[in-house]
Structure formats: structure tokens, C-alpha cells
């Protein structure tokens, strides 16, 4: 995985703001390692995903062997190991939403965006605009079905509402 060529940390271009944000996050914990997840969140927020170079940069900031960050990157579903669409649609598939029509909603979104409703995992449209995926319970079961569009949360998503959400994504 890691060869001599991509050990070059300089190829990750962290801005001054990111560096400052990461330093601030690290200051929240008496042990640097505890900031790992928050630091990876901060990187993903800026770049949309977490590259190997980003991991090496973060590992240096946190004074950790890179494996410590790779092992959490590969565990948590929200952390991305490759670029995703500009708009990420996460449809809740768990029971209450399923009873409320989540599968129909997911199928509708996939059909509309030319994706396969039966494929596993996140799928991205060819133009890189959308990523659609099923996720587990989003903790809003009383307003099923629910979905997220990037950071924004949408409740009681009818097919019409879903169309309006995707249409607003330019």
C-alpha cells in the first residue's frame, strides 16, 4: 500500500486554516491520538475524502504511526477512502423508514439518476454530481422516510420532495 513514492507528505496541501483547525482540535484532548476522528472529519470536510497523503500528514500532526489512522479510516462508514459525488444522498434503510417507504425512495432516486437500485454500497453518477447510498438508522424514525443530502437532513421525503431535492443540486 505505502511505497516510497507516496511517503512524500508534501504532496498533501493543507491550508493554513486546516492546520489551525487541526491544532485547535488536538488541544481539546490530553492525549493527541484522541483527536484522530475529528481531524479526519476536518480533512474530509475540506477535500470530500481522505487520501493516503492526507493520512500521512494527519499521522505526522498526531505523532502516530499511519496505521493507527488507516485502521479507523477503514472502519467508520462515514469516512471516505475515495472521492464521492458533489452531492451525497444518504437514504435511511432501517425498519421504521422501510415501513415508511424508504426502499421505494431509494429505487426512485437510483432510477432518476441512472444508478442500479440493487447494487451494494455507495454509487456515483458518471458526471460525479451525485452519490447515492443506503445508510442505517438516521434517528428520525417518526418522520419516515428520511434522507440526507450532504450535511442537510430531510424528513418525510415523498418522491416529489426527492425530485425537488435533487433538482436543487446544481
Amino acid at each position, binding site marked *: 500500500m505505502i511505497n516510497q513514492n507516496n511517503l512524500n507528505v508534501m504532496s498533501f496541501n493543507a491550508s493554513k486554516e486546516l492546520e489551525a483547525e487541526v491544532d485547535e482540535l488536538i488541544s481539546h484532548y*490530553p492525549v493527541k491520538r484522541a*483527536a484522530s*476522528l*475529528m481531524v479526519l472529519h476536518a480533512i474530509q470536510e475540506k477535500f470530500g475524502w481522505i487520501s493516503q497523503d492526507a493520512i500521512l500528514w494527519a499521522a505526522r500532526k498526531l505523532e502516530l504511526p499511519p496505521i493507527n489512522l488507516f485502521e479507523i479510516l477503514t*472502519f467508520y462508514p462515514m469516512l471516505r477512502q475515495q472521492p464521492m459525488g458533489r452531492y451525497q444522498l444518504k437514504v435511511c434503510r*432501517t*425498519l421504521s423508514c422501510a*415501513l415508511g417507504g424508504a426502499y421505494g425512495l431509494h429505487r426512485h432516486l437510483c432510477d432518476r439518476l441512472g444508478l442500479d437500485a440493487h447494487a451494494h454500497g455507495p454509487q456515483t453518477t458518471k458526471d460525479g454530481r451525485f452519490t447515492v447510498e443506503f445508510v442505517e*438508522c438516521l434517528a428520525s*424514525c417518526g418522520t419516515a422516510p428520511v434522507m440526507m443530502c450532504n450535511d442537510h437532513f430531510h424528513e418525510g421525503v415523498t418522491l416529489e420532495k426527492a425530485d425537488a431535492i435533487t433538482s436543487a443540486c446544481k
Partner: protein
Amino acid sequence: MAQEYKLILKHADAPGYGRDLDSYLHHGGYQTLGKALHMPARDLPDGKKMTAQEQIREEVKISGLRGRGGAGFSCGLKWSFVDRKSGKPIYLICNADESEPGTFKDRQIMYKDPHQLIEGMAIACFANDVHLAYIYIRGEMVDGARILNEALREARARNFIGRNILGSGYDLEIHVHRGAGAYICGEETGLIESLEGKRPYPRIKPPYFPAVLGLWMCPTIVNNVETLCNVKHIVAMGGNEFARLGTPNNTGTRIVSLSGHVRKPGYYEIEVGKATMRELIFDPQFGGGLRDGRTLKAVIPGGSSAKVFKAGEKFKLKKKDAEGRETLVETDMLDLPYDFDSLAAAGSMSGSSAIIVMDDSTDIVEALANISEFYAHESCGQCTPCREGSLWMSKTLHRLTHGEGRAGDADYLLKIADNIPGGRTICAFGEACSWPVQSFVAKFKDEFVAKGKTDEERRAGQGNELAKAPAEAAAHH
């Protein structure tokens, strides 16, 4: 007749109530923290003094408060386990990783009344000599993390947290820590590992009881969002007064999350045990009943891990008569009071107080397949019985719902489910993934068997020998 009782959600949905600090202060916010911080030591008959901290911990014990996250463990008792003599710092973590399917109560508090949580936390921290605390919020609640950070900034600016809070000499810092989409982080030792920057693999108990060896191997308290809010009200009204709410051993209020096939899904705060399942599902002020022409099929009473109830199921519950004698009374599932003890006596649990209602349009096999897929996805993979078992159950249910079922699948599912829990796994996830399978299959066995049989017969009709059930194929040899 049962009715809502709004203690925690008193202001959250009131018209004009904002989540900003001014709104909270306008409604008496942070007065209880002030009271707690300046509580004088109490003289005891033996000449000793009881500190403010000890008095608060005592009130919480008297209140009978039980954890609102899922296990329903006594909060006062949990606090009493904290090792206060180790010389190490004591930490407190608010478990805001609300992820149990069906549950959406903590979201209401954090998004609409974040300062109530911060005040409750600050009091709980003061009472336990904590100077550094974290709110572990699930990663998907992006706005929730922003709201809490903004509220913390406001509270810091007015010295409700920070150094020398309100001139008391007490210091406390609280930070928000975000998860990243893993259900297992709700398990308290998994949460601690996650906060330390590791994979959230739960720790084995003993020896890793958080109260002794928690965050960074220091004594640590992990409490749910709603539990911490209750602490504020206990200090405000006194433990005895709080204990008058609800029913004996099931004190205070609970926010019930109601979802699925009801007309009015939503969150309803009730005095614990003062409403029955029937009232919560059918009463117009709560769920408002089922959709037209539908009948009840099943109810999951406490989040998806809780064992399911079948409509019409009856239980023999102990009840005291007028003279205080205990008798066994046959009780319909719907007439169970919604509390910790009654649901436990009926073989299930109130868990995270999330009711999922399923009417007769529900394919019960599909419903279980959905739940099992969740657990197969969320098992952390540390213990073999859970990692493999949750996946086997999910795969078996997948074939049953995709025309590839076998008549023996029902028994096969039970066999797997019976071999995961009971001390074979490090944490209670083993139980959580098995209970739905055990209860769904046992209570709706005919539907599971019929589905498998239909599939087998269809395949036999197509002359597909290979697809026959293994037992049947073996009989031909």
C-alpha cells in the same frame, strides 16, 4: 387517563422558544447550576459535613433515576461505582450517539434545547468532580454538532462553563466529539475506545468497568443525553419530588419515540408507567391508532433490539390488590404499562423507549430481514459468534425474502440466534442481534416456515434438485 407530562421537553416545542442562550435564560436556565455550585455543606448528626457534591449524588440516588439510554441502570448507583480515590482525573462523557433503530428523542433535546443538556452535564460533572467532559454525538448529526458547539460557545462566554464557573472556584471544559456512522459506538466501552481515536471495539468487563478504568484508563461516567437532563431537574426539584413522578422503581418521565404504522408518529413525554402501550399507540393525543382498515400485527417496544410483541399476546404479571397481596393477573400486551419493569416482566424491554408499530400489511419476515441486515452491518467484528452469527442470520433471512428459502430456515435461525448471546461475546451486541431473531421466529414461526416451504415447492416444481433443502436432499441418499 394517560396524558403527556413535559418535564424535559417543557420548552423545546413551545412557540417562540429558541435554542439560543437568551431564550434558555429567560425560562430560568442555569439557575439550577448556580444553586448546585453554591450549595452549602450540610451538617450531619455525627458532626461530619456533607459536601454539595455528596448532596447532589445523594439526591440522584433518592430520585431513583434510571438510565435513559437503553439498559435502565440506576444512575445514582452508576455514579457510586466511580473510583474517587485513584488520584486520577474523573471524566464524564455524554452519550449522544443516538442510533438504536426507532429512537429519536435525544435529537429533540440537542437540536431544540441544547443548553438544558449543557446545564445537566455541568451539574453532573460538578457532582462527580469532573473537570473535562465530552459530548459524543453521532457523526450524521452534523447540524447537532454545530448547534452544541454554538451553545457551548455561548455558555463559555457567560461563564456557565470554563474557569471559576459563576465565582464558585469550579472549572469545567466540555468539548463536542463526533462519531462517524458506527452503531457500536453507543456501547459505552466502544464509545470510550472511539473517543480515544481507535476502532470502537468494546472492552471486556471485568476489568474495564468505565467507573474505574474508562477513558485513558481513568474513572469515567458515561450517561445518556436524557439522563443528564434529568439530573438538572432532580437538583431543581429534589430527589423525593422527582420520585413522585412516574411509578415506584420507574420514576420520572420518559420521552417515547413512536414510529411505524401509526397515524401520528412522534415523540411523547410521559410519566414512566403512567401510560399503557395501548394508550401510546391508539389514544388520539399519542399515536392516534392505525390507518383505516388495518389491524395490529406486532409491536417492538424498546428499539429494534427489544424482543417483539405479537398482537394479542398475553402475559401473567404480578399485581398488588387492595390489601397488598400479590396476585398474577393476565395482561394483554397492549395493556402493559410503559415502564422498565413491566416490559422486562413480559420478556422484552423498554430499552431506549422506542416503539415501532407494525400493522397487518407488514411482511414479518421482511421486517426481521431488515433488522438483521442492520446488525450484520453494525457488528464490530471483534467476537466470532457475533461477527459470523449476525451475518449468517442476515444471509438466511435474505434468501428467505428472495425466493431461495428453505422450510428448515426458521429452526436454523433459532439455532444461530441461541448460540450468540449468553457470555459468548464481549458486549451486549450479541444479545441485541439475537433477541429480535429469537422473538420474531418464535412468535411468527408459521410465517417463516410457510415462506421457506413455498420456495422449496416452487423449486421442486422447476426440477431444481440442487436447490432443495439440505435435509431433504440428504434423505434421498
